[in-house]
């Protein structure tokens, strides 16, 4: 499991690297997301992009990954505080915004969990370990929320079922059930590792089927790639969670 965990730690860097490059490619668009109170918006876009590229490379090459994970978790938490919460306070209660803000929060939690795992291995920083523990439960709660979304809001899901699969809604609900069960298992500390690994493998498969199909039909559509990378980050987060639970079992 340690080897698998390391592969997904490295894979976790791919979406970050892609998002970082996107900040430079679509700087004008991303600048629109920077809170209005910030001067020189384009500067913040490039800074964030550069930070994401650095984090992506750190995960992929497994160099300074602990620092990268901790900083990434902090940066995404700042996104939630400075972008998502003001939008929410401004009356943006739409389904897609809820999905996006919870996804950012989940990826932040995954980054902190990863920081906790790496910190544990290097036996330092108790604060990070504590943040990591809290993040584990936060990620579990978010899995339950994502799972419930599969039942309530099939337009903007975290785990999307390919359109060509027969009995599509069955798969949507099955995915939702699996997410809720995994979240609950982690929260009650029973079979959390097993359910997380199973959910991660399942998400990896349906993401591959869904996004592979979309990308094959719209190779040059940035939206498809962005959505694929977002879902990949969440899937890696599930595997990172599984890795965290394994590390805990070993250390007990």
């Amino acid at each position, binding site marked *: 499991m340690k080897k698998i965990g390391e*592969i997904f730690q*490295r*894979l976790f*860097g*791919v979406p970050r*690297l*892609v998002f970082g*490059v*996107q900040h430079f*490619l*679509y700087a*004008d*668009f991303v*600048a*629109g*997301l920077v809170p*209005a109170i910030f001067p020189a918006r384009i500067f913040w876009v490039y800074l964030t992009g550069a930070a994401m590229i650095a984090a*992506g490379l750190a995960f*992929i*090459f*497994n160099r300074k990954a602990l620092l990268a994970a901790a900083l990434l978790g902090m940066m995404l938490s700042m996104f939630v505080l400075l972008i998502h919460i003001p*939008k929410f306070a401004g009356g*943006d*209660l*739409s*389904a*897609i*915004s809820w999905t996006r803000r919870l996804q950012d929060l989940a990826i932040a939690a995954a980054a902190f969990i990863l920081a906790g795992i790496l910190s544990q291995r290097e036996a330092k920083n108790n604060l990070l370990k504590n943040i990591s523990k809290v993040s584990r439960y936060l990620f579990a709660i978010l899995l339950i929320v994502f799972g419930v979304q599969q039942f309530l809001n099939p*337009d903007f899901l975290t785990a999307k079922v390919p359109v060509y699969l027969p009995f599509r809604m069955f798969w949507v609900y099955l995915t939702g059930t699996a997410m809720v069960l995994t979240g609950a298992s982690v929260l009650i500390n029973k079979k959390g590792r097993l359910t997380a690994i199973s959910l991660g493998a399942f998400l990896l498969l349906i993401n591959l089927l869904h996004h592979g199909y979309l*990308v094959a039909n719209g*190779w*040059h*559509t*940035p*939206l*498809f*790639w*962005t959505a*694929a*990378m977002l879902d990949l980050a969440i899937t890696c987060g599930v595997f990172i969670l599984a890795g965290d639970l394994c590390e805990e079992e070993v250390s007990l």
Partner: protein
Amino acid sequence: MKVSTITSLLLIAIACVVVLGQTGGNKMSDKLTVKKTLNLAVAKEIAAEREAGKIIGMCPLRLWTKPDACIKDTKPSQVMFFIIKK
């Protein structure tokens, strides 16, 4: 060459494919053009506001990149929710 190095290079290659894949085709449109009739009123209003510089951010992303496809697939209420004004 070590396995970890090969894995890293493979992942970098995947990231490159993802980035190059999305940049090779249609560029992100700077001007919002609306051709389809579905949700046209809403789309025109959004386009006019953007021209006037009132809109500084908007989702779904397709409204920037693929307005036709977006207008075809997205309900007006979903579009209206995601406009951020100065």
